[in-house]
């Protein structure tokens, strides 16, 4: 989707601000959300593409103001409600109860089975050969899907060169929507600064983006 998250090339965000001696988390709830997301995905409640798409679908103002772990919090709520684990009403009732002083988390019996932490692998073996070869000129498609995609706006319709053929991975555009994994080859595609930004590009700059086969077309060779 052409959302607020797709920031590459946008103007107006000002200088890069560094935080001196930055802690890894700024509040206790950020730690909990960090762990919760890892465990939610490890438990098979949604997948990483659903997670990313939940963030992309945030109201733009919320996206810009919630902070990194605030966005994660929103996404974990979405994974839980959209995968039928709990309803929004249940979550709200629990929040109200906690705000009114209900006992916090009951210590759950620790589960004897500990699944591996973190996400499930997204790499897949495919039998088809890569469609494009190293050094080949390719065109990133000028498409604007309303759903999840990892084809950034700033490369759409631009020409680049394949600099790396990665193994095949699950296709985020379908996997985020329960439409299957459709694993396919992934390519590192390098774009010249001038191709992306025109005459105002800084000299001697290129950007390489990892693009799925379905995002690419061959560049017709003239003559």
């Amino acid at each position: 989707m052409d959302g607020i998250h797709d920031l590459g090339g946008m103007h107006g965000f000002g200088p890069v601000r560094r935080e001196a001696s930055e802690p890894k988390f700024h509040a206790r709830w950020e730690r909990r959300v960090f762990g919760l997301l890892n465990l939610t995905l490890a438990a098979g409640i949604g997948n990483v593409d659903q997670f990313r798409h939940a963030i992309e679908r945030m109201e733009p103002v919320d996206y810009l103001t919630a902070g990194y772990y605030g966005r994660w919090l929103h996404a974990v709520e979405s994974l839980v409600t959209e995968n039928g684990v709990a309803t929004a009403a249940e979550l709200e009732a629990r929040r109200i109860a906690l705000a009114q002083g209900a006992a916090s988390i009951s210590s759950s019996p620790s589960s004897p089975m500990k699944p591996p932490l973190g996400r499930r692998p997204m790499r897949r073996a495919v039998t088809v050969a890569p469609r494009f070869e190293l050094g080949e000129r390719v065109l990133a498609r000028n498409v604007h899907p309303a759903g999840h995609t990892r084809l950034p706006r700033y490369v759409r319709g631009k020409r680049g060169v394949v600099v790396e053929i990665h193994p095949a991975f699950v296709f985020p555009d379908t996997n985020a929507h329960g439409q299957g994994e459709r694993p396919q080859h992934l390519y590192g595609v390098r774009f010249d600064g001038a191709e992306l930004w025109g005459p105002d590009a800084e000299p001697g700059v290129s950007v390489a983006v990892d693009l799925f086969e379905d995002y690419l077309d061959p560049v017709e060779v003239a003559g």
Partner: protein
Amino acid sequence: MSGEHDHGHDHGHDHGPSSPELRAEALESLLAEKGLVDPSRIDDIVHRYEHDVGPMNGARVVARAWVDPEYRSRLLTDANAAIEEIGIDGAQIERLVVRENEPGVHNVVVCTLCSCYPWAVLGLPPSWYKDFAYRSRVVREPRAVLREMGLELEPETEVRVWDSSAEVRYLVLPERPAGTADLDEKALADLVSRDSMIGVARVAPPSPSDV
């Protein structure tokens, strides 16, 4: 900002039902009750990323590559195998790719769509890496961004930006600074900063007092 959107992360003292504190607690308590999440495992994961996983891992990789040309070559061709060789658990990174800085070529890493980052070798990303300014600008004006961050590149140096838009994660192998011929691998690793492995800094030579 209107009141209904006023729930940013700066409002740590807001503990009403819509505060992030209570939203997180409600989620954790419901998921624990349903037997889907064990709260003690949250502690384990947080502890791991606060104490055991961080840029010291990447620094070990870089230092080894500086002292061992064969390791460097393995690292550049199969980084996952190379980090596991020195005991780094790369399970969270399905494909790690290392890009080497050299005279005339400088590499820098970003994720414009979210904040993908090679956790296993660098730990959790700094705020600026996740913020909108870096994500929007470094693909468009990397020289200006690097200059602002204190890294001035020669005009003839080519700048290669890597936007981690899929499941591949990137680590920059920075150039070994001059004046370090006498340092052993451990001392070299101590010099390697997180920022140099993202590509927004050079590795500073040892200060005279360290030598």
